[in-house]
């Protein structure tokens, strides 16, 4: 059976059109990803700002088109879908966005977001049926319709709004939910509730998630697989627990060392953190490893070619770093 979502050699380049003379931005380069239809999984895409994770979300949701490569949903290429198939795709692939304040129209009561999808997808034949569907969806996220539906967005808390978005996505019974930083703007105490809903939808409803985040600790807690992006390429991938407990790529090691430990006696560990600005970044992308300017273990050959993924552990744990090139080790 064809996988649920299969991304092959996806590349997205911004800029560089006929009229623009400026440098191009490679947001995503030769990206591969496969999500199997069952069992349902939570696939985490992690990386810093500008690593291409939101570009990936936009591509999967069909907001922008690929420069080259393919996104195949259950055997059908996204770019070749007919209008009819696209509507089906839009229904089966849903999104939950980062900012629960910006997704609502402040002039409408919150039930408007539910009414809209019921109307667009002709989901209910009567008002009572529609109401029941909404109620069911809200119950899944632990809310009651009478308490919230007639309110305006500003009368709800951030956590409530984000749970409503989960309920909205759930109501369409999608196969895949693209969750772009769903908890980064929600309080720590409410974060667990949103993550718990994601786990329940995965286990009880068989919905898969593409969970996009920069927070590795939540990725560790709920993710099944993880892809760590750096500058549009995969730095390291594998099972979430294996990667985070035993990171191999120097960038991933830096990232994990930078997570503040909730213990005052343990200060930020590892090497001194370095960041570089966009200008240096663009210069460095011509050839070779994109992490070269910041890497503490760089070698000459890192400038010559981009590293391909090398196996570094069980269950497809790969790191794109020449440190793990077996041939290199033999030569040395």
């Amino acid at each position: 059976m064809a996988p649920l979502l299969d991304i092959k050699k996806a590349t997205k380049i911004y800029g560089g059109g006929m009229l623009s003379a400026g440098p191009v931005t490679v947001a995503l380069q030769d990206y591969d990803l496969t999500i199997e239809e069952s069992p349902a999984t939570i696939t985490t895409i992690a990386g810093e700002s500008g690593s291409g994770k939101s570009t990936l979300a936009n591509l999967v949701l069909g907001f922008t088109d690929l420069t080259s490569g393919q996104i195949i949903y259950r055997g059908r290429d996204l770019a070749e879908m007919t209008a009819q198939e696209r509507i089906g795709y839009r229904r089966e692939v849903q999104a939950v966005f980062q900012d629960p304040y910006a997704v609502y129209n402040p002039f409408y009561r919150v039930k408007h977001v539910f009414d809209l999808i019921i109307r667009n997808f002709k989901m209910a034949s009567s008002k009572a049926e529609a109401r029941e569907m909404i109620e069911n969806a809200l119950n899944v996220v632990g809310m009651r319709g009478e308490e919230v539906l007639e309110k305006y967005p500003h009368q709800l808390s951030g956590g409530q709004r984000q749970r409503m978005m989960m309920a909205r996505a759930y109501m369409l019974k999608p196969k895949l939910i693209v969750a772009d930083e769903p908890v980064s703007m929600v309080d720590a105490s409410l974060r667990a509730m949103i993550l718990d809903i994601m786990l329940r939808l995965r286990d009880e409803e068989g919905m898969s998630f593409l969970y996009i985040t920069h927070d590795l600790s939540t990725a560790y807690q709920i993710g099944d697989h993880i892809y760590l992006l750096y500058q549009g390429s995969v730095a390291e991938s594998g099972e979430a627990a294996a990667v985070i407990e035993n990171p191999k790529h120097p960038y991933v090691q830096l990232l994990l060392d930078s997570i503040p430990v909730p213990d005052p006696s343990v200060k930020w560990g590892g090497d001194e953190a370095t960041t570089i600005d966009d200008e240096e970044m663009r210069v460095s992308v011509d050839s070779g490893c994109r992490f070269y300017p910041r890497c503490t273990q760089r070698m000459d050959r890192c400038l010559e070619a981009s590293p391909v993924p090398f196996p570094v552990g069980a269950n497809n744990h790969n790191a794109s770093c020449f440190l793990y090139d077996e041939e290199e080790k033999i030569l040395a």
Partner: protein
Amino acid sequence: MTAATTIDPVDTVTASRGPAEQDTILDIRNLQVFYATPTGDVRAVDNVSFKVQRGEIIGLVGESGCGKTTTAMAILRLVQPPGRIAGGEINLDSVNLADLEGDDLRETRWTKLSLIPQGAMNSLNPVMRISSQIKDTIRTHEGRISNRELKERILQLLQLVGLPSRVYDMYPHELSGGMKQRACIAMAIALDPVLVIADEPTSALDVVVQRVVGETLLDVKERLGVSMIVIGHDMGLMAQLVDRLAVMYAGRIVEFAPVESIFNEQLHPYTQLLIESIPSIKEKKPLKLTEGLTHDLRTHMQGCIFQLRCPHVMDICREENPPMRALRSRHETACHLYDDDGVRLH
């Protein structure tokens, strides 16, 4: 006032960390900030008292809506209607800011206390170079200064926050998020204030940049000896950054202690909850779900403010508001769970 801070002076002197008591920069007493609504006042900050010593970083944590930003805004006298400072004193260098008006207030802001605002990266003027914005700040307060002297000073400031000198001529859109944040820090320390308030200084940044900004703040504190109040909700970051931590809930401080002490032993049930809900990268554990509602801040609650969510609630909690008490050395909390010797009752 029952909620007034009572610190045993002996404890303070014997404490291992932090400067002596007499070096108090900021002394807040029974601060109250209310927001007027058609159905009554919302008590956003209710009887908050604490002191900030010279050269220390105080962390202010709590969930959204607990009053941490409102407290900061009150210190800066930036509470906007329908909000108002309903009572209390804000003594900065023995001047009560709550009484200042007009030019006195304008002169105090930024020369004595400055702000790194929430989402600081969006607070820079997009059509002005970084240098012009810092120049404005300095000229407004210090009058005429020669361009050469000014340039030298700004370059020094940029160096202090770890920015390359070419940032001087750049516009905000040419900088990354972390660099913009550091430019804001440079601006906040431009006039050598005694107190800097940083409102969620790293909330929109990813971990590596967050760390760079955090380390910049620590570095600036070391070099200038400035005091800071850092507002946030990330306990991990607080553990790395601050000297003493104040935990706020529903407009009140419920626990206040040196950061080591609070991470060693959380006395207040709400602090326990906050620390338990930090996701770990060391061990996989089941998600800690917290249900429960904060009471309506418009009504004055009989008893403890945390009684609706507290797992250890007792009869006395529904009747009497627990006062702030020092139960350990320099470790204060407002909770009925402990007797006067700091022994837990159940």
